C-alpha cells in the first residue's frame, strides 16, 4: 500500500479526521486532575465538550487516527485495506504539536488517538506509545488522553500506554462472535476481549493499591482481588453471553429464568424484598451513581502515573448485523458487569462501503434504534433496570413509539401509582418523567416538607408523563383511569412526534407554488 509521505499537516489532519469520525466515543469524563505549574492542562470529572458539529455530536477531544493505513479488511470500515483511499500517517511530533496548540486555545479537552494497523499491531501500538510519551513527558501535557488499545499488541506495550492515558478502549464492534466472523475476517472475539481483560485487571490492581473498594463481590463485577481472580478469570469470551441462532441464551438457565418478570416470586417491589426472594438485583443503587460502580481511580493527584484512571469504554455497531436489541443489551450488561466498563457506546451503522455481507439501509442510519439503546443503557446504569426487565426473548426489540421506561411502566401498571412523599429512591427512579436529578431533589426536599404537584413541577419532574404513575399525599393530579390502553394513548401522541423527528429529520418540504406533487398525482398535466 502506498503511504503518502509528502502531505502537509493540514492535509493529513483532514484525511485522518475524516477517517476517525465514525468512532462515537468522544467523552472527556471520568477523571479529575488539578493543574500544576509548568504543565499545561487539567481534567474535570464531568468532562467538557468544546463544540458541537453539524450532526449534533460533541467535539471534546482531538479525534484522529494515527494512520488510516490498515492490514485488516473489515467490511464495514472505511479504512479497510481493499478500499482505494489516500493513505497517510502522522508522526508523533505532528500529533503532539497539534494537541498542544489546539489545547491552549481551548479548542479541545485533550487527545483521542485511534489508529489503523500499520505493518503490525505491535508497531502501531509502539507509535502510539511514542506519541503519548512525548506529549506527557517532553511537552508536559496534563489534559485528557483517550487511546485505543490495539487488539493483538504486546501486553507490555498496552500496559505502558495505560500509564500515560486517562481512558483506554477496545471496540467490540459487533455483539456476537458470529457477526464478527462475517464482517471482520481479521479479528476474533478472543483477540478483542484479551486487551479488555488486561485493562480491567490493571485498573483493579491500581484501585487496590489506592485502597479504593471495588463493587461488592457477587453483586456486579466478578473480581475483587486480582491475584486471587487471576485463575478464575478466563481471558476468552466467557464473560459475555453467547447466543444460539434464535437469540436465546442457552448456557445460562438461571439467567433466563430471571429474565421473564412474570415468573418471579410474589414480592415484585424492587429493593430489599427482592433480594430476599432470591432475585439478584445487582449492586444497590446510590443517589446519582452508576450501579456498576466507579471502575477507575477517578480523582488523581497528578504527582504520579495511574493506570487508566478514567476507566475503559467500548463501542458496538448497531444495525450492521441482524442481532436484535435484546442481544445488544444483554451483551452491554455483561460488559458492565464482567468487564468493568465505564461506558458502552452504540454507533448506528453508516453505510460507507458496498458489500454483499452488509445491509442496505435506504432510510439512513438506524438512529432511532441507537437512541433507544442509549436510553436503555442509562436505565441499566443509573435507574437500576436489568436488561431482562426492559426486553425479553418474546419482545426482543424496543417499542419504536414509547421510550423503554414508559414501555416498562405500562407493562407493570400493577406497581403504580406510587406515593411521591413516601416511596423509596429506587422506586421513584422507575417512574416515567422522573430522572436522577429530579428524584434526588425530591428525596432531599421531602425530608422537611410535604410535596405537592406544583413543587414537583419546579423540581424538574415531567408531569405530562409522570402524572399517571404518582400520587401526592394520596391524590392523583387529575382523575384518570389507571388503564393500560388509556395511558398508552395519552403518552403516545407526544412520543410519536419525537420518534418521527429522530428518524425523519429534514424531511419537511417547503411549500412551493410551482412544483406541486399532489397535482401530478391527480393526473393533471403541468406545463413543463
Amino acid at each position, binding site marked *: 500500500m502506498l503511504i503518502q509521505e509528502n502531505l502537509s499537516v*493540514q492535509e493529513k*489532519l483532514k484525511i485522518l479526521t*475524516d477517517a476517525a469520525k465514525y468512532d462515537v466515543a468522544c467523552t472527556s469524563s471520568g477523571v479529575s486532575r488539578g493543574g500544576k505549574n509548568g504543565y499545561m492542562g487539567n481534567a474535570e470529572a464531568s468532562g467538557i465538550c468544546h463544540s*458541537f458539529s*453539524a*450532526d449534533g455530536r460533541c467535539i471534546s477531544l482531538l479525534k484522529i487516527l494515527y494512520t488510516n493505513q490498515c492490514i485488516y479488511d473489515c467490511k464495514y470500515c472505511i479504512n479497510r485495506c481493499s478500499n482505494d483511499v489516500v493513505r497517510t500517517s502522522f508522526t508523533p511530533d505532528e500529533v503532539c504539536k497539534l494537541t498542544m496548540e*489546539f489545547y491552549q486555545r481551548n*479548542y479541545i479537552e485533550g487527545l483521542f488517538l485511534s489508529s489503523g494497523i500499520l505493518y503490525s499491531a505491535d508497531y502501531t501500538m509502539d507509535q502510539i506509545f511514542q506519541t503519548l510519551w512525548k506529549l506527557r513527558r517532553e511537552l508536559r501535557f496534563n489534559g485528557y488522553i483517550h487511546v485505543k488499545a490495539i487488539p493483538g499488541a504486546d501486553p507490555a506495550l498496552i500496559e505502558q500506554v495505560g500509564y500515560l492515558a486517562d481512558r483506554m478502549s477496545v471496540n467490540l464492534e459487533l455483539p456476537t462472535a458470529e457477526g464478527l466472523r462475517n464482517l471482520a475476517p481479521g479479528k476474533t472475539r478472543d483477540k478483542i476481549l484479551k486487551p479488555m481483560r488486561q485493562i480491567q485487571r490493571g485498573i483493579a490492581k491500581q484501585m487496590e493499591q489506592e485502597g479504593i473498594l471495588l463493587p461488592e463481590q457477587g453483586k456486579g463485577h466478578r473480581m475483587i482481588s486480582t491475584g486471587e481472580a487471576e485463575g478464575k478469570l478466563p481471558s476468552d469470551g466467557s464473560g459475555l453471553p453467547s447466543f444460539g441462532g434464535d437469540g436465546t441464551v442457552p448456557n445460562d438457565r438461571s439467567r433466563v429464568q430471571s429474565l421473564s418478570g412474570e415468573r418471579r416470586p410474589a414480592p415484585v417491589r424492587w429493593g430489599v424484598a427482592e433480594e430476599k426472594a432470591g432475585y439478584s438485583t445487582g449492586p444497590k443503587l446510590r443517589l446519582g451513581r452508576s450501579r456498576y460502580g466507579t471502575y477507575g481511580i477517578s480523582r488523581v493527584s497528578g504527582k504520579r502515573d495511574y493506570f487508566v484512571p478514567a476507566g475503559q469504554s467500548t463501542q458496538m455497531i448497531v444495525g450492521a448485523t441482524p442481532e436484535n436489541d435484546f442481544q445488544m443489551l444483554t451483551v452491554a450488561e455483561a460488559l458492565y458487569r464482567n468487564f468493568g466498563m465505564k461506558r458502552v457506546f452504540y454507533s448506528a451503522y453508516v453505510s460507507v462501503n458496498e458489500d454483499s455481507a452488509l445491509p442496505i439501509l435506504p432510510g439512513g442510519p438506524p438512529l432511532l434504534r441507537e437512541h433507544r439503546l442509549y436510553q436503555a443503557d442509562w436505565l441499566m446504569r443509573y435507574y437500576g433496570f436489568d436488561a431482562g426487565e426492559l426486553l425479553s426473548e418474546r419482545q426482543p426489540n424496543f417499542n419504536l413509539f414509547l421510550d423503554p421506561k414508559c414501555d416498562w411502566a405500562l407493562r407493570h401498571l400493577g406497581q403504580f401509582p406510587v406515593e411521591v412523599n413516601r416511596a423509596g429512591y429506587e422506586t421513584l427512579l422507575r417512574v416515567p418523567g422522573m430522572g436522577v436529578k429530579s428524584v434526588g431533589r425530591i428525596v432531599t426536599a421531602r425530608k*422537611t416538607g410535604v410535596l405537592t404537584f406544583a413543587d414537583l413541577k419546579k423540581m424538574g419532574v415531567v408531569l405530562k408523563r409522570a402524572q399517571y404513575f404518582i400520587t401526592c399525599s394520596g391524590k392523583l393530579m387529575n382523575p384518570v383511569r389507571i388503564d393500560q390502553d388509556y395511558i398508552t394513548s395519552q403518552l403516545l401522541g407526544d412520543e410519536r412526534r419525537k420518534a418521527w423527528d429522530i428518524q425523519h429529520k429534514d424531511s419537511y418540504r417547503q411549500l412551493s407554488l410551482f412544483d406541486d406533487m399532489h397535482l401530478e398525482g391527480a393526473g393533471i398535466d403541468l406545463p413543463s
Partner: protein
Amino acid sequence: MTVYVCEDSFDGILCGVYDAWMSRKGHDHVRLEIGGTGDMELFCEYAPVPVLPEKTEKVISSIRRKISERVYKKVYTASLSQEPGRADIIYRFLIDGFRYGEGVLSMLHLPSVFELFRLCRFVLNESHLLKEFARFSRTEEGLLVSRIGPKNDVLPMLALHFADRLPSENWMIYDENRERAVLHPADGEWFLVRANDREWMMGLDWKTDEEEYQAMWKMFCQTIAIPERKNYVCQRNHLPLRYRPYMTEFQG
C-alpha cells in the same frame, strides 16, 4: 415599604441586606433593589445603601458562622446572576437561612430557596458552557486573548478554571457586556481589571497571527461531522446561537 437601593456588586448587596435587616421595619416592609434596575414605585421610600466594608464583613461572618460555608458559596454564586431582582432573592433566602440554618439548602419547596437555586443554576450552567466555548487566540507577543459576552457575571468562575488549566501561560478573558477583564500572568495570580484601565486592556488590540491553527480547527470541525447524521436542531440545543459569534469555528 422601604426600598433599599444597593450597588451592583456582592458587597453592595450584602450591605443592603445589613441595612434592611437592621432597620427593624419587618421583612414585609422592606425590599432590596439593584440601583438602576426597575421602575420607581409610588408609596415607597427609597434609601440608597452606601458600601461600607465593616457591614459586608459582619454579614459575611454571620452567614459563615450561623448558617454555613456552603450557604455562603450559594449566596455568592447567586450574586453573579444577571437577574434584576437578585438582591431581594438573596435577602429572602437569608431570612430563611437564619431561621433554619444549614438545612435550608434541602428545603427546595420554599419559594425563596427555589428562587435562589434557580439563579445559581443559570450562573453555574452558563459558566460551564463558557468553560467549553471560550476560545483563545494567540497574539505575536504570546498572550492568549479570549472575548466572551455572557449574560451572567461568570468571569470569576472562568478565571478559577483557566488559572488551574493554563497556569504557565499569559492569558486574558474580556467580558464585553460588563467591560471587565481577567488577566493572568504566567505562573502568577489572576486579577480583575476594568475597561477604563487602558494599561491592562492593550492586549485586546494586539494583533493575532492565528490563521494556520484557526483554519485547521475550522476544517477539523467540518470534517468530524457525519453527513448522513446531520441534525442542526440537536447542534443548536447543545450550542446556542448566542455563543457562536465568539467562537472560532463559526466565524467567517
